[in-house]
C-alpha cells in the first residue's frame, strides 16, 4: 500500500523544473502524478514515477537534493462529497495530513496522494472503512 514518492528541492529559478523533467524523460521514466509546493524562495517538487529508485539515483548524480518519501494513494469515486467523506474519517481518527494532491484519469474515480503523519494508522483507518487504496505496483505502472 505504501508508495515511494520522489521529492526534489528546487529554487524558484527559471528552467529548474524543466531540467528535472528532461532528465527523467531521457531516462525513460514516466511520471504518473505530480505536484509543486512553493514558498517565495524555494519549492518542493513531489511526484510518483515509474521507477522511483532509478529516478533517485540519476537525479542525485545530476546533483539535485532528492529523497523518497512514503505516501499512500486513495481512490475515491469521482462524485461530489467523496473526498469529504474520506477526510472526515481520517480527522475523526486524528490522522493529520501533511499534504495531499490529486489527479483523475477518467470520470469514474479520482486518486488522492496523501502524506499522513502516521502512515500505518492511516492505512488501517482507511481499510477499516473499506476505502480503496491503490497498490504501489499499480501506481508506478500508470
Amino acid at each position, binding site marked *: 500500500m505504501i508508495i515511494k514518492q520522489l521529492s526534489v*528541492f*528546487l529554487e524558484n529559478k527559471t528552467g529548474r523544473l524543466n531540467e528535472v523533467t528532461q532528465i527523467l524523460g531521457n531516462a525513460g521514466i514516466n511520471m504518473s502524478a505530480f505536484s509543486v509546493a512553493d514558498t517565495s524562495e*524555494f519549492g518542493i517538487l513531489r511526484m510518483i514515477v515509474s521507477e522511483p529508485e532509478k529516478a533517485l539515483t540519476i537525479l542525485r548524480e545530476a546533483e539535485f537534493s532528492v*529523497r523518497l518519501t512514503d505516501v499512500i494513494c486513495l481512490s475515491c469515486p469521482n462524485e461530489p462529497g467523496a473526498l469529504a467523506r474520506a477526510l472526515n474519517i481520517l480527522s475523526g481518527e486524528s490522522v493529520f495530513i501533511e499534504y495531499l494532491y490529486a489527479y483523475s484519469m477518467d470520470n469514474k474515480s479520482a486518486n488522492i496522494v496523501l502524506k499522513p503523519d502516521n502512515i500505518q494508522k492511516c492505512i488501517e483507518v482507511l481499510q477499516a472503512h473499506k476505502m480503496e487504496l491503490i497498490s504501489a505496483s499499480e501506481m508506478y505502472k500508470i
Partner: protein
Amino acid sequence: MIWNEKIECASREYMKAVQSERLIETVKRIYHNIPSYRQKMQAAGLVPDDIKSIDDLSKLPFTVKTDLRDNYPFGMFTVPMSEIVRIHASSGTTGKPTVVGYTRKDLNSWAEVVTRSLCMAGVHREDIVQVAYGYGLFTGGLGLHYGCENLGASVIPISGGNTEKQLQLMQDFGTTVLACTPSYSLYLAEEMEAAGIKKEDLKLRIGIFGAEPWTENMRKEIESKLGIKAIDIYGLSEIIGPGVSCECEHQAGMHVNEDHFIPEIVDPETLQPLPAGEIGELVFTTITKEGIPLIRYRTRDLTRLNYDKCACGRTLVRMEKCKGRSDDMLIIRGVNVFPSQIESVLLEMSETAPHYLLIVERDGNLDTLKLMVEVQEQFFSDEIRQLEALRKKITHKLQSTLGISVDVKLVEPKTIERTAGKAKRVIDNRKM
C-alpha cells in the same frame, strides 16, 4: 591641545628608552605568569634576560588570537582576579569570545590614551560628546566614555541605536562631538535629512569614528553631510580597545600611543619585520598592561608606519588607514565576523557542514549579511514547514552567535561556485 606633550612629542631616542625599559618588565611578567608563552620562549631558546632593549623585540615569539581562545577565559591574565576590575569580550574565530581583563592601572592607561586621542581630534573640555558606540562587552562605548571624563568633556552615554533619540539629544543638548561607527554616522545623516534637520541646526563639529574600515570617500561624504571634521580612531580589545591610535587634526595617519603599545610591521607570510614605510601586518606589543599584556600580537590588519614628525608637533609614529586583513575576518557594523563562526553554527545542525556563501552588501550606508546555504540531502525534508523551520533555526543561531542579523537563503546543491574544488566562502560587495 597636546595632552601629554612630554611623551607625545618625545625624541625617538627618549621613546626607545621608555619602550625598552617597559618591554623588559613586560617580558618578565609574561614569562613568569603565562606557561603557554613561557614554553614558546623556551622553544625559541630565549630567557627574559636575552631581551635587553626594544632592538631585541623581533627575537620574541608572536601571540595570535587562538592563544587567547586556548586559554579561555582568563588563562592569559598575569594578575589574580582580585586585581581585575573590568572584563570585556569580543567575538572570537569560533564559538568562544576573546576575553580581556583590566586592572585599575590598565583602566587609567586606557583613559589616558583615549584622552590623548580626543585631544588629537581637537576635542576639549567644553565639548559635549555623544558616545553612540555600544556600551557593554564591546570596548567602544566605555573606552570613549572614560577618556572623555578624564579630559573633562561632558559625556552623553547614549550607546548605540535608537536613532530618533540620538537626533533629539543632538539638537536639545547641543552635542558638539559624535563618537560612533562611520557607517552609523552616515545613517544618522540620512535620518536627519528625512526628519528635516539641517546640519546648521546642530552644533556638531567633530566626529570620532572607528571600529570598522572606512574610505576617504566616506570621510568626505560624512564631513559634508554633517558639517564636521571626521577623525579616524583605531583600536582592538586585545590591545586595549579604542585609543591604540588616532588621527590628529591634520588627518595624515593615526598616531600610535607607542609608549603603551609598540607597533611593528611584519610580512604576513614570512613573519619577518619589514622596514618603515612598507605595507605588512600590524603587530603590537603592550608594554604597560597588567591584566592581559601581549607580546607581538598579530592584529591581522594590513597597514604601514610613518616615523616622520607630524605637522601637529607630535613625534608618535603614525599608521595609515588599514588596507585590509591578512585573514578572512569581516567587520560588519563594527562587529567582527569570521566565516569559521558560521561554519560552526552550521555544523551544529548536521554532521557535515553544508556549503555556504556569505555575501556582504552595503545597502545605503548599512552593511547587510546574506548567507546562502546549500540544501544537501541531510538537510532536505520534503515538508515546507520543516525547511522553513530549518531556515529560522539557522537565522536564530547566527543572530545569537554573531550578534547581528543574517538573511538566510536556502539554495540547491552546487549553486555555490567552487574554485579548484574549494568553495569560496565570502563575497564582499562593499566598496572600500
